[in-house]
């Protein structure tokens, strides 16, 4: 599974499959997607077997019957507009339970690109008692710490 994901481009160092990024950058308009229901038990399919196939049942609308084949790496390179017609292919090729929440959404469903990608991690460095202002200058600057004396340009207030 790990090797398969690598091939699928899930671990490209940026947290976003290359194909998704192409999609999100593409100006092509999203066609309406009719999503077939997920077949119970399809998770048992071993994705590492390239010949793994499964039959999708008829959709509630009755007009869709499709075979889902895990996409080999070469097919990932197909033009973005083709990917957009069946964006769920990527997810269906993965057992849903193994996908983090943020990757379960199909890219076109994301109003904001960040919804499709790995959550960020933030850090705040521990402040050091280093150089400090003289007391009267601190009062003037609004902080005792030159490190925190930054140009904040708020609305409606004067700019120092």
């Amino acid at each position: 599974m790990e090797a398969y994901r690598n091939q699928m481009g899930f671990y490209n160092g940026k947290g976003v499959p290359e194909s998704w990024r192409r999609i999100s950058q593409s100006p092509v308009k999203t066609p309406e997607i009719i999503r077939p229901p997920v077949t119970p038990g399809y998770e048992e399919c071993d994705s590492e077997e390239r010949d793994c196939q499964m039959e999708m049942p008829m959709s509630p609308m009755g007009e869709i019957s499709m075979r889902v084949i895990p996409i080999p790496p070469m097919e990932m390179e197909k033009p973005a507009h083709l990917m957009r017609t069946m964006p769920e292919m990527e997810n269906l090729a993965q057992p849903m339970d193994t996908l983090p929440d943020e990757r379960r959404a199909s890219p076109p469903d994301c109003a904001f690109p960040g919804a499709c990608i790995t959550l960020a991690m933030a850090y705040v460095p521990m402040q050091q008692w280093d150089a400090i202002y003289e007391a009267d200058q601190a009062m003037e600057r609004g902080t005792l710490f030159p490190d925190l004396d930054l140009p904040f340009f708020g609305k409606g207030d004067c700019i120092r």
Partner: protein
Amino acid sequence: MNQREILLKRVQICDFVLNDTALFLDTHPTDPMALGYYKKYLTIREKASKEFVEKYGPLVRSDYAGGPRWDWVDEPWPWQNKKEA
């Protein structure tokens, strides 16, 4: 700036740096430099406010010294200062 204003400003500056240092100490409770700085300005603040209270009346109501008059109500009130302290 008259003597009253100078003393008031001194108290105000002390209060400011004490407050900012306290915020630092909240996350660095054992920082010796910060503790030393806080102690130093606490002393300056106490001295300045004591001098102010003796000469010009209370800064806070608890500065009442037990005299025959409740001098908290004596002018000037903060908004009667000619300029911001």
